[in-house]
């Protein structure tokens, strides 16, 4: 999977989760979006749902071993998944 494809899938998972939790589709999420609730609108349960959804889709869960501390943007999440997927393959 290319970096661009991974970005798309992660952003799609975030958007789906926002749509489910708010009932509103079409949230603006980009690679540079910040992860805090005020910026992206997901609380801790929302992010947990994103992680579970990505595990089902990608077969990877970096947060089995990695902490969420220090993650600032969607790009940081993509980095983490990319690293995990490369390690798995």
């Amino acid at each position, binding site marked *: 999977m290319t970096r661009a494809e991974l970005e798309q899938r992660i952003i799609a998972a975030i958007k789906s989760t926002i749509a489910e939790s708010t009932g509103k589709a079409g949230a603006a999420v980009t690679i540079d979006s910040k992860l805090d609730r005020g910026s992206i609108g997901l609380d801790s349960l929302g992010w947990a749902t994103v992680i*579970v*959804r990505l595990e089902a889709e990608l077969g990877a869960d970096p947060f089995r071993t990695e902490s969420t501390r220090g993650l600032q943007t969607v790009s940081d999440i993509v980095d983490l998944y990319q690293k995990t997927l490369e390690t798995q393959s």
Partner: protein
Amino acid sequence: MTSIPDKSSVVLVSGGSRGLGLEIVRALVDAGHRVATFSRQLTAELDEFIGQHSDLVSFRVGDLADPDSLEGVVRDIEVQFGPIDVLINNAAVARDGILSVMRPQDIEEVIRINLTGTLLLTRSVTRKMMLRRRGNVINISSIVGIRGYRGLASYSATKAGLDAATRALARELGEVNIRVNSVAPGYLETNMSESLDPEHRQQIVRRTPLGRLGTPGDITGAILFLMSDQAAFITGQSLVIDGGITC
């Protein structure tokens, strides 16, 4: 004859091969649910029951002390029966004795199985429930988590911990329509109570407002209620089923 309820659920019961766990499995199957259970060993009683209801109940070897085995158990069950609707955390071990002289490894084992193992199993199952945005978790606690009983410090700590986790998880998961409750049985007419000496048994009966020991049916009835839509607005609660001995 088994009567099929309006909604037949897929239920995972930990530790369903004997004692209260086996009674829970039987009651759920009698109510028409599909039930998967696991424990360290298959017992003759459960094996016989599976033989009579092979389409509704299944067993796998699994050990709460071995977290790696749990995800495989959950995966296998979902392949056989489909997504798990209800998780009943029943499996537990008890090591009684005065804490000051208990072997440290026995204390650690009780906590590892009753608390850590149960939380890890709940983690695996609720991950799937979160995506489906529905589910039901019922923890089998105990009155020893509420009142002090000598010789049960580590076991009691795990049961009180389970009740605390029940409330925390209810807060965490309510938004995705997952209910989490616990039932806390008191003294039951089971193999365990047969070991009580007659005098102690009479003392318990005397102190119990309803004047008897509980039956497994008293507990399974409450579980079926908590699973049902009649309990759709109940979450984060511990239902004490003890004939009033702790009131």
